[in-house]
């Protein structure tokens, strides 16, 4: 079953923060986060495994609450380069199913 992302779209000014949420109705083994620029392939950001861990990648971090079957991606002090569409992917078997995406636009 496809995970649900919220919000669908976010517009920020440079330096502002944003949170993107990903929730699933099924128990999760892991959550992936990817970013896709227009006309390009998705690029890996991070994986979170069961255990409620938090990870960071530059000024982008994420948390995973397996009991709530939710993950959140935190973008702090956003830069123009953060613009793109963010996808979470969830797995409880061998296959990775992606959410519908959250479009982030960072303006100067």
């Amino acid at each position, binding site marked *: 079953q*496809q995970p649900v992302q919220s919000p669908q779209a976010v517009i920020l000014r440079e330096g502002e923060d944003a949170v993107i949420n990903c929730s699933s109705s099924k128990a999760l*083994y*892991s959550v*992936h986060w*990817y970013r896709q620029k227009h006309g*390009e*392939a*998705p*690029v*890996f950001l991070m*994986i979170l*495994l069961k255990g409620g861990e938090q990870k960071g990648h530059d000024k982008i971090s994420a948390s995973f609450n397996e009991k709530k079957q939710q993950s959140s991606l935190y973008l702090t002090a956003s830069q123009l380069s953060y613009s793109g569409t963010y*996808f979470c*992917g*969830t*797995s*409880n*078997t*061998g*296959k*990775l*199913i*992606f*959410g*519908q*995406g959250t479009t982030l636009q960072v303006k100067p």
Partner: protein
Amino acid sequence: NAGVTQTPKFRILKIGQSMTLQCAQDMNHNYMYWYRQDPGMGLKLIYYSVGAGITDKGEVPNGYNVSRSTTEDFPLRLELAAPSQTSVYFCASSKKGQGNEKLFFGSGTQLSVL
């Protein structure tokens, strides 16, 4: 390493025609995947494979076929192209499955069915 290579990059098909989208990886990855992405939408899993000779359906398998005769190659076959199959197709691979390894994506094939 070239990573994941997809060919062709662009293709226009007429309704009812057939074609094969090629995907090859040189990272000795066991898992390979085919996704489609409609304009402005997310990635939908078509088929995936956990190793040579083993394939399984994803979310949207109808109208497609796959085979995995070698570890390196995972072609996707469209038998009777329909306008609904107009999309960008991404092939991806990972060393292991179970969601604990990142996916490496190819650059995509943009397919139009007219």
